[in-house]
């Protein structure tokens, strides 16, 4: 234990000037996004999807096909980057990076342990949702700028859906915030770790146990934010052939493609932090030094669990029509989340 303590002390003593610190942090996030997207893409889109369809998935690239997404990335990079003649050039070029920017900003606030977080904001959750609504603008830009009827229809559908599902996502989280008493993500993790169920502090109080309605709504809203089946309308490949991404190719399509998986990773991380107790493990106190190593591993495992749930829905269900998914959001998810908030509030006061 002692070397660990001294190692932590050295780390604490390392106090670089401000600009170097932000550069390191930006570098960390820039490296983190492609790797997490690659891992998620490989594991779920190639491997798990194939197993569910009684086949083995790619086997040739890398050991048992694990480097397939790298091969795809390389393929996209060397592909010609076509911009349609009548497209609005600047907006067309900028769109994928706006969508990716919202994912970059979300990674900033995800805690892997008490100190392993790029920026421990006090308004953590509030910041996350403020930033994640940026992607709507990127999608609309892509849909409109491609000067293609299919992509226009895709872009408008995406705009309607993303905005409609932002509300239930935020309201679902309000329950958690009431119970945790703070907006800070690390605070929420600590609250879950130290809480106890009717006096028994054994496994702490992961909010999924009390907020299972909130978890369900959050999962549905995340499915819609990622435009995945059953809320697949913006990229309905059997109607409007991958919606707003129709005209993109080469590096820009790669940014969309990886962006989608990076966003999936980000939202899965937030769901893990809010509902499954984030990086904390029940039998270990929140501030022990073990979390320098254990935190990321535990968080990664929980993220894998949540993203398995997300992709499992994607591989099984057909898609809802856009007016049906709107009524599902406005008429069912939002009232349910309001009731959930009311119940949490009342119980919080009573208990």
């Amino acid at each position, binding site marked *: 234990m002692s070397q660990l303590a001294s190692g932590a002390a050295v780390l604490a003593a390392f106090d670089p000037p401000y600009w170097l610190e932000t550069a390191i942090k930006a570098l960390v996030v820039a490296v983190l996004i492609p790797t997490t997207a690659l891992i998620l893409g490989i594991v779920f889109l190639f491997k*798990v999807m*194939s*197993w*569910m*369809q*009684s*086949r*083995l998935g790619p*086997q040739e690239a890398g050991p048992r096909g694990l480097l397939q997404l790298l091969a795809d990335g390389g393929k996209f990079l060397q592909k010609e980057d076509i911009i349609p003649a009548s497209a609005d050039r600047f907006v067309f070029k900028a769109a994928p990076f706006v969508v990716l920017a919202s994912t970059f900003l979300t990674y900033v606030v995800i805690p892997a342990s008490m100190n392993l977080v790029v920026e421990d904001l006090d308004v953590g959750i509030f910041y996350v949702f403020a930033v994640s609504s940026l992607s709507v603008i990127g999608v609309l830009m892509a849909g409109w700028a491609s000067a293609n009827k299919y992509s226009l229809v895709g872009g408008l559908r995406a705009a309607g859906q993303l905005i409609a599902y932002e509300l239930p996502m935020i309201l679902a989280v309000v329950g958690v915030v009431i119970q945790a008493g703070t907006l800070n993500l690390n605070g929420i993790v600590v609250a879950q770790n130290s809480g106890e169920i009717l006096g028994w502090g054994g496994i702490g109080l992961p909010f999924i146990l009390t907020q299972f309605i909130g978890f369900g709504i959050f999962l549905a809203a995340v499915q819609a934010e990622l435009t995945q089946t059953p809320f697949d309308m913006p990229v309905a490949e059997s109607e409007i052939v991958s919606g707003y991404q129709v005209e993109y190719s080469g590096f820009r399509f790669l940014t969309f493609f990886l962006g989608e998986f990076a966003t999936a990773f980000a939202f899965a991380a937030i769901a893990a932090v809010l509902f499954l107790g984030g990086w904390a493990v029940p039998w270990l106190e929140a501030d022990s030094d073990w979390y320098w190593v254990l935190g990321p591993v535990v968080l990664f495992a929980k993220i894998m669990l949540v993203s398995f749930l997300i992709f*499992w*829905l994607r*591989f*099984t*269900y057909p898609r809802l029509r856009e007016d049906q998914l709107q009524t599902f959001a406005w008429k*069912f998810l939002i009232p349910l989340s309001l009731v959930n908030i009311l119940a949490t509030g009342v119980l919080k006061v009573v208990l």
Partner: protein
Amino acid sequence: MPKVPGLIKGLGVTFGEMVKTLTDGPVTVQYPHEKEEPAPRARGVIALHEENCTACMLCARECPDWCIYIEAHKYLAPPRREGGKPRQKNALDRFDIDFSLCMFCGICVEVCPFEALFWSPEYEFSELKIADLLHDKERLGQWMQTVPDFEPYESGSEQKPKKVPR
């Protein structure tokens, strides 16, 4: 909210399929490493047994795609018995089947009265240039080794399996 079981059963099916694929292997065959054995009667490629062919041109005439090209000439064969007249026989100069046109319907194999054409389930004869798909009579002769024996028939059938001249 509609009743839930429908949605949950769907998830159960895909999860069950995933477990089944992981435990007792996928349904798919990893082609270049393992190869699936086609049925003995599969119509892969046509094989020519040149000795039986008497250049009667029936297959070339019956082919709907016009893809069999035959050239033959007559010659005087030595008489069977030493005193007899020399007999006139047909010698095959060219017997090409253009597999880029052929639709594998099997009319030529069926209409050949002298049992010269056979089906072989071989399917790996793709070429880089489409002109190479025109198989001449040597190539068709080589396919003869890949022709499997005719299978015995199901009980209750009055057909007798034919012999493949080796």
